[in-house]
């Protein structure tokens, strides 16, 4: 593993809980890791297996999904749906040969920016230990999609 390995992380964040948390974390702490690409979703329940696989296909070393706590979901059922999607995704990326730690689902309330920061830094630490993803970027673009 290269010594100066800086992992590429994609984080799918729910608009209601974690997007404000990210903003707060960035404002309050200059140490917030810059190598995370935040993809804001209107609801954590919007995340699909395809989003996560595509992030890996395009060379992400780790993918983090951050939603509301199940009982706080702004759209009532979204966070629960995210749990199901992530369970299924875990099975598939495990089968494909990614280490289980490369993918994580976290749940936060909109006030927990410290907790979020800690979780994401821990996540990055795990990825750093694992080294780069086995995937080299496949191609520039991916096919347009429908759901």
């Amino acid at each position, binding site marked *: 593993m290269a010594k100066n390995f800086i992992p590429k992380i994609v984080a799918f964040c729910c608009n209601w809980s974690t997007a404000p948390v990210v903003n707060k974390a960035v404002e309050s702490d200059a140490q917030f890791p810059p190598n995370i690409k935040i993809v804001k979703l209107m609801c954590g329940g919007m995340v699909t297996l*395809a989003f996560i696989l595509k992030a890996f296909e395009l060379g992400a070393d780790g993918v983090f999904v951050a939603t509301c706590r199940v009982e706080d979901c702004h759209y009532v059922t979204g966070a629960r749906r995210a749990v199901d999607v992530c369970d299924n995704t875990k099975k*598939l990326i495990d*089968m494909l*040969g990614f280490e289980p730690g490369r993918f994580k689902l976290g749940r936060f309330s909109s006030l927990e920016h410290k907790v979020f920061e800690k979780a994401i830094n821990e996540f990055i630490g795990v990825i750093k230990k694992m080294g780069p993803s086995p*995937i080299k970027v496949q191609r520039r673009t*991916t*096919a*347009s*999609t*429908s759901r």
Partner: protein
Amino acid sequence: MISLKSAIKNSKAYLCLECGKCTSVCPVSKFNKGFSPRVLVNRTLRYSENDILTNKNIWACLTCAMCDLRCPADIAYIDLTQATRLEAQKLGEEAICSHGGAAQAMMRIMTATNLQQKRMDWVDNDLKVAEKGEVLYFVGCLPHFDILFSDKGVHTIRNAKSSVKILNYLGITPAVMPQERCCGHDLLWSGDMENFKKLAEYNINEIKKTGAKKVVFSCPEGYRTFKIDYPKYFDVDFEVQHITELLRDAINEGKLKFREIDKVITFQDPCRLGRHLGIYDAPRKVLSSIQKLKLTEMQRSKKRAVCCGVSAWMNCSFYSKRIQMLRLKEAKETGAELFVLSCPKCEIHFNCAMKEEEARDDIKIPTEQLVTFVADALT
């Protein structure tokens, strides 16, 4: 790589009579009035290359080959379509992928050579498989499909279990590759030649390592890809066989014993096995050797069998659902109790259609795969 000009030459598209017979038999044209293979052939011949390559309709074809068979000028329309898509992709044109492109992403991920896949969980204790051997069973994407389509309630992995069970019954311990990759069928048909070739090359090399002389498939798409497409680009020095052909031969030699099954069934010919490779009799021979089993044919069967409505995980649409419902209705009208399929995608697509809100009882029929049906009938 083939240019559009040579594709026109190879497919003999220049012979088009503009008779429109292709459009009249095309299942997509039946419902989607904006789609016509005749028009596409003509635009390919008469307009600029750019016109056809940017035409969205080139992605809507199911490559079911119904038109190929009907065409009086003997034009290889699906070969033309394959070449057109490969060219179009070079321009940055792309298919509309169903399921958010999850299947395609998964296939491109598999092009990485250093993955440590864990895809062998399905091998139960009572199944005998080996690392090396004369005969290899190619699993395909079955374990992945069951996760991708868990909401459809399908268990396509049973194809693999049953295939190995049948091979074991015949005294064969097949080699199964723990690091097998997708055959690349879907990437090829969606125009991604680069990644198709990576998968093909990887698989061929892995198969060499097992020492296999024969590769057996339960998936018709994998079979077609290995039989027709791989040899176009790579040296393939092993024999390929579909499990129904293997079963037919074993039955002819009297090696298989079935219990009686008192049932009425109907059978769906998958496009890849049927029109692409001309295998119609082998599955029927296998089914007819089960005592008391009655096979009733649908209104359109064998050469005229209607496709299951989607191919290569792209362009699933309202029209696909119409095609699927039409086909399910035909199956139901035979009075059969069971709809026997022999392609994992047919299973996924038909079951998806039956789960539609508007699906009524006249299209609901239980489905089962030919290999699982046959494996369960073995005594």
